[in-house]
């Protein structure tokens, strides 16, 4: 056993290697509901976006006026897919909201965040961080210790996605609603207008998609079957070191 393996396991002393689940049942269920909802939101979001794949800054924007970003996509107006798309979008936004609330409340009560996601002091050194980043850039396969705990980059990435990016997604989504902004005008004026909120909603979704791509790539690199099995059954297949 290498020194780093030993130390990482020490930082999670309550983890019983052979019997305790790697992921709690709440984490597993909310993970997959979120996965499914997110994909539904991306697809329905594209259906809505395709009616006008142009992004603006400020309060207003239209086809004959100046734009911020012209996406290289066609204007799809004749196929009424954005109507049903919006039904799907809102249904899964609600499901995602409830799932997220369950996850966050459970994460606080079960100390999931403080135990597994808050960066541990042991990892907080420039030397370690540099090595971690270089290992990632070299696509070095994950060690056995990574099957049982999260490294610093994972912890920071997950915390940012959970507490910054997803809330921003909801915020910018609600900021586009004329009904919601009649009650809370500052949620849209903060961004400089309804079109700014729309643009940020799109860009934030791109950040989430980028996270998804890296996340899945890392899972593949670390061993797709093992990691996915752990997120479904909760258990890490025993390796010779952990028996």
């Amino acid at each position, binding site marked *: 056993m290498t020194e780093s393996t030993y130390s990482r396991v020490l930082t999670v002393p309550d983890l019983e290697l052979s019997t305790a689940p790697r992921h709690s049942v709440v984490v597993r269920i909310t993970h997959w509901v979120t996965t499914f909802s997110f994909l539904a939101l991306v697809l329905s979001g594209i259906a*809505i*976006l395709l*009616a*006008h794949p*142009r992004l603006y800054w400020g*309060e*207003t*924007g*239209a*086809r*004959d*006026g100046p734009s911020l970003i012209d996406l290289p996509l066609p204007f799809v*107006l004749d196929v*009424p*897919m*954005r*109507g*049903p798309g*919006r*039904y*799907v979008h*809102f*249904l*899964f*936004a*609600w499901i995602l909201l409830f799932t997220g609330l369950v996850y966050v409340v459970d994460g606080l009560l079960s100390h999931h965040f403080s135990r597994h996601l808050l960066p541990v002091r042991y990892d907080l050194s420039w030397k370690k961080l540099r090595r971690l980043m270089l290992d990632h850039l070299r696509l070095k396969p994950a060690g056995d210790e990574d099957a049982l705990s999260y490294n610093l980059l994972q912890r920071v990435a997950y915390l940012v996605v959970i507490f910054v990016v997803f809330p921003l997604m909801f915020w910018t989504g609600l900021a*586009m*609603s*004329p*009904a*919601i*902004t*009649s*009650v809370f*005008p500052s949620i*849209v*004026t903060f961004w400089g207008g*309804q*079109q700014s909120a*729309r643009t940020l909603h799109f860009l934030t979704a791109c950040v989430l998609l980028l996270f998804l791509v890296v996340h899945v790539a890392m899972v593949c690199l670390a061993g797709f079957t093992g990691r996915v099995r752990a997120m479904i059954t909760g258990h890490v297949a025993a390796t010779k070191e952990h028996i």
Partner: protein
Amino acid sequence: MSESITRRKLITSGLVTAAGVAGLGGAWRIADKYGFLAPDHQGILGMGEALTYGAQRILMSRHSLAREFDRSQISKIIPVNGEPPKTEAYQRLLANGFADWRLMVDGLVDHPSTFSLVDLKRFPSRSQITHQACEEGWSFIAEWSGVPLSYVLHLVGVRPEAKWVVFFALDDDWDSVDMPEAFHPQTLLVLGMNGQELPTRHGAPLRVRVPRQLGQKSKKYLSRILVTDTVKNIGKGWGAADPEFGYSWYMGI
């Protein structure tokens, strides 16, 4: 032992599920009674619509005002969706400067009435500079002036059992709003736009403006306003023509 625990678990979870279903059913009935259910809430996809509409109706006061803007913010580029009706009837009305056009207001009202354009122009007028977003994604700011719908509704005397106000248009489109939206101070029967007469492409002779909802709700070319306690007998009963094309009825988003 373990078997009895399993059975107990099964019974408990069964009871919880039953209570949940009963609770949901009860909540549904209460929501319907107090007007928190959209007309198109049916089906699995409608559940999102029901939640959005119900949550916003609870969250929003009846009088929360859509944001208003400064005259300097009025858009220079104002796109238009769709063309005025090509029907002979509309063309005849247009040729005559809409002198023969009448707005009928009927249904659950004490005094069913018809109004001419001259009548409407005599009523107290209100102007507002509001943002209008198309459900496609583009948007503009314009000044709209006209008669508050609430003024006309008070004039004809809405009966207490009324739940919806339905708009019928000369292009056979139709839509509806609930009573809080109908009596909202910014809900206007629009006669003018940016200081001019309402252009035909923007809905002349009369369009409604519902600034707390997407532009799709602000129907053009109105000919009739119906006050009713149910929309089930109109079209497919989903509260508007748009849901029949896949759109949701509630456009507050």
